[in-house]
């Protein structure tokens, strides 16, 4: 959903697994929808880790653990690998996450998050490890993500880092604009390119 980004301060949901692929984020059987209903995809985020085949809750999966919640998902390295399905970004947005923090993202998924106003924040492995420790010690640990300043802070320890964000994408996030708005204004340049 298009929304303006500024400063986000929230508790986190920790998922300290590496190589979380988009088939886990949203299994293929939920890709048959022909509409972009983020609520539907959000309800099925991590479906097969959240529910058993008979529909009962997997109590020890973090999304089912009442101690954890918030607008920030914190995940192990290489988050979003595999399938290009944008439904994974829709599911993350639909569940209510605005930010995903990891030490490494897969390329296509990272773009998909940005195109859906979910901010992927790349931190150092040390920052990530410390944040997992902080959350494990106190699930009420908050993180502050300052988009205009491009900084991320673990408020439990005060550790702060700057993160990379393409200047154009930052402009889009802060002003709630998307790439299609931009491209539709470029018709003359595209036609000139085609004539070359």
């Amino acid at each position, binding site marked *: 959903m298009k929304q303006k980004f500024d400063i986000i301060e929230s508790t986190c949901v920790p998922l300290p697994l590496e190589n979380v692929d988009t088939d886990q984020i949203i299994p293929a059987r939920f890709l048959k929808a022909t509409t*972009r209903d983020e609520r539907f995809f959000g309800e099925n985020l991590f479906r097969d880790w959240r529910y058993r085949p008979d529909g009962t809750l997997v109590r020890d999966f973090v999304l089912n653990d009442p101690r954890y919640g918030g607008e920030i998902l914190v995940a192990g390295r290489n988050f979003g*690998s595999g399938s290009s399905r*944008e439904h994974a970004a829709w599911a993350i947005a639909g569940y209510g996450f605005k930010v995903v923090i990891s030490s490494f993202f897969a390329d*296509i998924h990272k773009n998909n998050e940005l195109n859906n106003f979910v901010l992927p924040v790349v931190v150092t492995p040390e920052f990530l490890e410390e944040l997992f420790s902080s959350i494990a010690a106190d699930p009420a640990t908050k993180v502050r993500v300052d988009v205009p300043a491009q900084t991320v802070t673990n408020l439990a320890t005060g550790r702060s880092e700057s993160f990379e964000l393409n200047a154009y994408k930052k402009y889009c996030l802060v002003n709630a604009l998307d*790439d299609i708005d931009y491209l539709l204004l*470029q018709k003359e*340049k595209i036609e000139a*390119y085609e004539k070359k």
Partner: protein
Amino acid sequence: MNTLFDKIWDAHVVQHVEGGLDQLYIDRLYCHEVTSPQAFDGLRARGIGCFRPDRIFCMPDHNTPTEGQDKPIEDPVSKKQVDALAANAAEFGLTHFGMNDPDNGIIHVVGPEKALSLPGMTIVCGDSHTSTHGAVGAVAFGIGTSEVEMVLASQCILQQKPKSMRIRIEGELGKCVTAKDMALFLMSKLTTSGATGYFVEYAGSAVRSLSMEGRLTLCNLSIEMGARGGFIAPDETTFAYLKGREYAPKGAEWDKAVEAWKQLKSEDDAVFDREIVFDAAEIAPMITYGTNPGMGMAVNGYIPTLDDIPSEGCQSFCKSLKYMGFRPGEMLLGKPVDYVFLGACTNGRIEDFRAFASIAAGRHKAPGIVAWLVPGSWKVRRQIEEEGLDKILEAAGFEIRQPGCSACLAMNPDKIPAGKYCVSTSNRNFEGRQGPGSRTLLASPLTAAAAAVTGFITDPRLLP
């Protein structure tokens, strides 16, 4: 900038956008039914049409059943998605090869076989295995649905230019070592994120020696190392494959095109951001033991032990082996198998069926094995029949199904039941990929056929 990647990419930049992105012109957009409906909805919401409909080709492949395609799809949700693609193609004036049409098949099999994908092109599709088309010497990569909408609307997308990597594999491949094994070997060395941020050029004598089918398999799996795409500079193998195909240039145009395509190579002094060399003799027939494609080993090897795994990866490694029902340090040879799947955009081409048939000939499917042999397109299926491979396979107890993505991701009725083991020629062994609870072991068509005729994991080199 003198790599082939630079040459193709830079020639397609309409303009540089402030902040470091390129507005990239796209020569070919493919649409399948799963990742396009919301993009077409987006056009309708904005009240706009497709900017260049002649550059866009649509076909359903993910939901199509692999039998009874002459009848309507039984699953109403699948049917709705397949019907939506047909309706969207008609509304926006796009070419559409519908289910059961003689031109239909998996998009990444049909594109090259019709020469819709040509050297020097930029090619995208809402599908990570779009990297397949790099085999013809194109810059081809997967995109999300929002980006599909961008291309429908403007024939362009905004992208950060990836870094370039060259992977050279030099020397001769050993017995029963295929392009699939090369790719699984690369993933096992580089991990599933080892090439993230890069576009890969495959080179070296072992790569050059591959047929076009083999090259398509190798490039297909680029994404499984995290690479956005992978490609091979076009050469005589490429030109011989493309010549005379439906959408290839004809007559004098063909000669002109080949002259231009011959310039599509990295210069001798080209500088890559990263370059890696492997010895082809190091590569054995491969199989995966875990739940990402980087968890692979020689088919006669041993699963790593916890001592081999970096500490931060132990939780994922243990979760993975628990899911698969394997123990650290054990061997897979001789483990019983329940299902065998030959097909997908990875290994659904004619050469893959020839390889499978070469092992099946004179043998018989093992009792208790369920085998799904799914051609990548109707054209592949017709060729199987023309070459008489269907007779060989039927005599060995196998049947050929109708084309589609099938059990690769089980969006159609072909699902591996929970807990069952499947030796699969597809591209991903993620948890639940082939159906909830399914356990996938990725391998080549030869290794899959060896499992199918013995009933357990077998080194194809040891079959007499």
